[in-house]
C-alpha cells in the first residue's frame, strides 16, 4: 500500500490554513507592531503593484507570495524601518523580508518539516502591468489581512 504524503494532500489532511494565518499574524505583530486578522479576499482585493515571492523546495514544494499596492508596500516598509525609507528598493526589500519571514514562520510550525524544506532568497516584482502566476499544480492557501485598512494578500501555492 502506498501512502500519499505530498504537500497538497497534507495541506488538506492537516488543515494548514490556520497555520498560515497564524504565521502571517505573528510576523505582522512582532515585526510591524500591528495586529491583523484574516479577512475575506473576495471583499478586499489587494492591488498588485508589489509582489514578493519566496520559493519552497524539498519536503514542501511551492511558492509563497505577498501582494499589495504600492502605497501599502511603502507603509509596510516605514512601519518596519521608520522614516529612513526613501527608495523603491527599500520598499521591495521590506516586502521581500516580510514574505521570507512568513514562509519561514509557516514551515517552522509544520510538524516533520525539520530541515527538509529550503527557502529561496526573496524575489520582488513591482509595476502595474504584470500578471503573477505560479506553475504549481497543487492546493492554494490564501490569507488576506488588512494593514492600516488596505488589503495585503498572502498566497501559498503548493506543488502536488
Amino acid at each position, binding site marked *: 500500500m502506498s501512502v500519499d504524503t505530498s504537500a497538497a494532500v497534507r495541506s488538506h489532511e492537516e488543515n494548514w490554513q490556520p497555520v498560515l494565518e497564524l504565521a502571517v499574524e505573528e*510576523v505582522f505583530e512582532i515585526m510591524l507592531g500591528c495586529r491583523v486578522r484574516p479577512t475575506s479576499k473576495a471583499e478586499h482585493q489587494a492591488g498588485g503593484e508589489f509582489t514578493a515571492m519566496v520559493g519552497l523546495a524539498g519536503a514542501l514544494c511551492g511558492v509563497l507570495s505577498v501582494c499589495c499596492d504600492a502605497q501599502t508596500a511603502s507603509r509596510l516598509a516605514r512601519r518596519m*524601518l521608520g522614516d529612513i525609507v526613501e527608495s523603491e528598493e527599500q520598499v521591495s*526589500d521590506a516586502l521581500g523580508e516580510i514574505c521570507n519571514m512568513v514562509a519561514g514562520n509557516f514551515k517552522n510550525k509544520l510538524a516533520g518539516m525539520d530541515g527538509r524544506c529550503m527557502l529561496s532568497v526573496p524575489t520582488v516584482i513591482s509595476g502595474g502591468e504584470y500578471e503573477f502566476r505560479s506553475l504549481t499544480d497543487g492546493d492554494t492557501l490564501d490569507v488576506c489581512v488588512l494593514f492600516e485598512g488596505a488589503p495585503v494578500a498572502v498566497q501559498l501555492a503548493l506543488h502536488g
Partner: protein
Amino acid sequence: MMRKIVERSLRQAGIDLEKVVEAANGAEALGALRENKVDLILCDINMPVMDGLEFVRQIGTVANAKGVPIVMITTEGSESHVVQALSAGARGYIRKPFTPDQVKEHVVPVLGKKL
C-alpha cells in the same frame, strides 16, 4: 532591510554600536572581516553567493575574526539548522520574526565584558 532592523533592535536594546559593517552575503562578509576588526558577527543562513553556514565554517580563515562571537538571525528554525550553526561555531541563534528583547537576550551574553 533586515540589517537595518537588526541594527535598530540592538540600539533599542541599549547596545552601543560604535561602528556597523554590512555585507550582503557570506563572501562579502569574509572580505569585510579582513578589512575590519569587530566585536560581534550577526548573520542570516539564507543568503545568495555564500550562505550563512558556509560563512561560519570559513570564518576561521580570517585572522581578524578569530574568537569573535557569531549569532545567527534567520527564518530557518529547525533543530537541524540550529545544530549545524552551533556546530559550525555560532554562539547564538535567533529565529525570525524576533523582538528587540530577543535580540538583547541572545546578544548580551555573548558580548560579555565588551558590552
